């Protein structure tokens, strides 16, 4: 029967850690945060009931340091470890270590993580479950192997090379023609090694102007597999998603039904037992979708699904770990609104180069239809060692247009961050773009429209303006009359 979690250690930082702490708080589960030295004043540390210093800045010494994390869990008498997304979330060894230490692992069975983490194996299983897959080859070693496969199967450029163990765009390189191939292969190999500790690669046909659609699944240990509909995650830059929405504006009811139940079929086939996502690429010209991968974890964009269905996915994962059967019925899961999410990364909106430093001003959006998942607070530092996500802004409305309008209000009149650069101006330009409003975009949308997107004028309000004046007064007060006067 239900074996309630008594204390949860969150093996993560920033936005995911904060997100999980919220649900734990709702359920009365005390939380333990971990932190690296530069994160000692981070938002998640202050929010948790307890915190443990886990090591120095480099991830390998802190958020990827498995022994230390398990020690921290044991020392704080935690009985469960929740990995969030990123870091160790899809590390089967870690999941196994957690379980072997007598702790509960908030995630799928380590075997499933291992299998689905191997892209080649995952593809084989998908084919076995009768799920359509993209033409490709596995275990790529050299250039010749790729060219032979392309000749044999009549595949044309572009192709994409990715880490078999990968995800999140890292170790993923698009190849436009034969000349680029050697360099691309070397880069993918090196990135794969660095990010995932394994340089096993695979190569696939690259679907131009493809749309990225994924299905949210929740399942339990009682053989129940439900889908919570799909999300559209097509808008990416450098293969990293920056705007997501649910449902997808690209598909109709028939395809929705087909894609969702295809995902259910696959997850049932692999005996999946928590929340997870099946990613597809959708070729809108042929209306065909192909299996990409399974994300065996909570995803960044899970919030939009929560908004359209009213379910708490983090809570459902805890239910499963606590041994409950999911109290859901597929026919009772409805979506009754449209939700949009933008990723407010600390990056230069024109060059995407990361922006570090102290957030000197942070105005968190409020108002009807807005959900905010923040990893920071005003005065917090953004260290250069980790991922650049600082806040997720989600909005919902009765229709897609309604959700976009709320997002416009949120970005133009509500959200403010100073001290570091954020993607906010770019995000605002995207959601105001006519093609975006019409739902016409592909994974290449941002590259294709970058010039017009970054040149859009930024809005200010009187509060922004008075702070500029105050900054001037402060500088002159400190420094006295200036040479240029």
């Amino acid at each position, binding site marked *: 029967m239900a074996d309630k979690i008594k204390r949860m250690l969150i093996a993560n930082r920033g936005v995911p850690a904060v997100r999980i702490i919220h649900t734990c708080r709702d359920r009365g589960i005390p939380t333990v945060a971990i932190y690296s030295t530069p994160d000692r004043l981070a938002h998640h540390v202050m929010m948790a009931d307890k915190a443990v210093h886990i090591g120095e800045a480099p991830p390998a010494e802190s958020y990827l340091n498995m022994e230390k994390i398990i020690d921290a869990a044991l020392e704080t008498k935690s009985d469960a470890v929740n990995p969030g997304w990123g870091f160790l979330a899809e590390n089967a060894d870690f999941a196994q270590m957690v379980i072997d230490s007598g702790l509960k692992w908030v995630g799928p069975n380590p075997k499933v993580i291992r299998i689905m983490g191997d892209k080649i194996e995952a593809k084989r299983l998908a084919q076995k479950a009768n799920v359509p897959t993209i033409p490709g080859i596995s275990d790529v070693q050299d250039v010749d192997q790729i060219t032979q496969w392309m000749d044999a199967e009549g595949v044309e450029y572009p192709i994409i090379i990715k880490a078999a163990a990968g995800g999140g765009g890292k170790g993923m390189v698009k190849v436009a023609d034969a000349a680029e191939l050697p360099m691309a292969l070397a880069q993918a190999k*090196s990135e794969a090694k660095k990010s995932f500790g394994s340089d096993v690669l695979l190569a696939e046909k690259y679907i131009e102007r493809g749309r990225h659609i994924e299905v949210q699944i929740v399942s339990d240990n009682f053989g129940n597999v439900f889908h919570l509909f799909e999300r559209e995650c097509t808008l990416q830059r450098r293969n990293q998603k920056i705007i997501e929405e649910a449902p997808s504006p690209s598909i109709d009811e028939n395809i929705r039904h087909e894609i969702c139940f295809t995902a259910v079929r696959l997850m049932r086939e692999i005996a999946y037992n928590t929340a997870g996502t099946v990613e597809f690429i959708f070729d809108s010209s042929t209306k065909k979708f192909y299996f990409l991968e399974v994300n065996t974890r909570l995803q960044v964009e899970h919030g939009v699904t929560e908004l359209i269905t009213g379910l708490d996915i983090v809570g459902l994962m805890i239910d499963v770990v606590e041994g409950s059967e999911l109290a859901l019925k597929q026919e009772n899961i409805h979506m009754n609104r449209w939700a949009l999410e933008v990723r407010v990364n600390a990056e230069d909106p024109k060059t995407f180069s990361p922006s570090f430093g102290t957030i000197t001003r942070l105005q968190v959006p409020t108002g009807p239809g807005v959900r905010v998942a923040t990893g920071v607070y005003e005065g917090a530092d953004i260290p*250069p060692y980790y991922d650049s996500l600082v806040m997720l802004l989600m909005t919902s409305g009765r229709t897609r247009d309604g959700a976009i309008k709320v997002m416009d209000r949120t970005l133009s009149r509500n959200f403010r961050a100073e001290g570091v650069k954020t993607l906010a101006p770019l995000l605002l330009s995207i959601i105001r773009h006519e093609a975006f409003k019409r739902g016409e975009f592909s994974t290449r949308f941002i590259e294709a429209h970058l010039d017009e997107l970054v040149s859009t004028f930024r809005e200010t309000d009187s509060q922004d303006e008075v702070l500029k*004046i*105050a900054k001037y007064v402060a500088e*002159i007060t*400190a420094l*006295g009359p200036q040479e240029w006067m």
Partner: protein
Amino acid sequence: MDAAKIKKENWIRPGMTPAEMVKILRELDGVALTCTGMRDAGQSDFKNRHRIYDLTTLCPYYEDMMLFSSECHGGARWHVGIMNRKESPFEEIELLRKHMPSVLLQTLIRETNLWGYRPYPKNVIEYVVERVDIDVWRCFSFLNDVRNMRTVAEIVMQRGRLFQPAISFTQADWTTNDYYLGVVDDIVQLCAGTDEIVLCIKDMAGVGSPERIRSLVDAIKQKYPDLVIQYHRHATDGLAMPALLAAAKAGAKVLDAEEDSLTRFYGQAPILALQSYLEESGIKVVLNREMAVKAVQRVRDWIGQYEWAESPFKGFDHQVTFHRMPGGAFPSSFEQAQKGGFLHLMPSILQLMSLYNRIVKYFDVTPGSQITWVTCSGIINKYEKELGTAGVQHIIDLMTRFVLEKDQDLDAMEPEEQKEILQLFRNAPGDFKNLILGGYGRLPMGWPADWVYESTFGDDWQEKIKERDDSSPLESLKHDDLERISNDLGVTLGRKPTEEEFTLYLMHPKDTINYIDFREKYGESPLVLPTDVWREGLKNPGDKVEFELWGKPYCIELLSVGAEHEGLIHVVMKVNNKTNVYKVETPRAQKAEIRMASGEEEIGAPINGNVWRIGNPDRGTIKVGDIVHQGEEIANLEAMKMENAIIAPFDAQVEEIAVKLNDQVQENQLLFVLKKL
């Protein structure tokens, strides 16, 4: 009409046609006044630093003062505005229109040079003049080359605004009444008669003796009785008042004056004093004295905050009748001399200027005055550097003899002296060279003597003389590609510029970019902060500054200023009750400068990141002196776990590696210096 009986309802106001304005002035029994308090007063004695924040306090009085116009725009005010006050001339016009809608706004424009310092092509002049909302356009040429005024005149008159062509005045043996009548003939012809213009006599240095001015105004009135004449005069020689009276008696209808409390030495005459003096002499003046008194009084509220901007050279200077430095150039020249550490050379420079203007004949007013200044101060500085004080005296003596005694007859000088004179202009600025080749238009007394060319150009001088072209820049300059320039600005700003930003950019590109950056960073600070706070900030904890922004009340209060620590000063302020801490970097904090890549042989970082590899896995680390090949990876940066290969753009030898392994670098920071093979 009797000047004393004119009411505001039947006085000149914006929206009237130029013909209506001219008619009122022609029928006026007495004189009207232009108040220069908002432009030339500030330019002549306060380096143009008077802020629109303070000037707008005068608007309510100007509104009822019954001025002919308020000279509030143009000259160097435009450039100093964006450079030093961080105000745009467009914002200023908008504010003045709002606060004194019944007053004619007047500008000063330099024919083809507009509000900049070089001749602009016709399409730029058209673009700019069409977009500036000014009622009275005083337009002058430092060469009195009326041809150069054509485009400004056409656009202004087409727009139904009042064109005020000016003759640049100086007192010299060659500037006779006949000479000026010739200039006036050209003007009357350009403007198709005298019905829609006011002619200005621009005595920018303040050198016209009362008798000389009487005679000139009289001569013009004899020939063109219907031509309305305005006399603009600086006070530098100390004789402004009698000269203004002489002009009025001879028939000038409009005179320039400024608030008595603004008056120093190089601007215009004091308005209240002028009115009394004229009336005592039997000349009626259109002026609401009560309002003028209030304006004069109001100036005293803020003028004390500009003491720092006043010229270090104080007092009238009758010697101006020889060196002819214009009032507007006085403070800026002395400022430059002070900054450059050669204030002690000013008497010598002014002496050389009085000789120089017998060698190259034009009028000392922008841009001519700058050419005179840079050329003469350059020569004196060079002599001082090479030969000390004695050298300076030597060149003054030599040139005095050559110009005054020998009338520039080179053969009358000793061979050694000839050699020296033929080197005099060798280091003259490019603008001087351009001027004597005709780049600005026709010189009023023709080309200077041949020795000037030999002295300037050396062996090539005869070739250069053949290049001389005295056609107007309006004909000789090719159109600028406005679309391309606008795109360039857009690229720099990362957004589309506004029409006003683009107009500013056409005139002063570099300063406009700085201005826009400043305003993006500091918003409306220049418009809302009182001058003491603008210049010095808040002094003591508890001091506050209150203002309205977009109709909302704001208050900034200083809580504390920390001591400097590691190059930072912490300033704590309350902004409408919310406490903010500002970390201000002191100049000392500016850390070791990061080298940026420029040019094709310097390879910069494409992103902010960490240099985790120098070289590539195939060949290992790359060292200085190694040969690298086009397309070869020479380093790799990592940011947020993404790799970015740095690729050699050509076959090259590594000259320098500017970073170390694991350095954190910023975008465009120099990584490698390569030598192309």
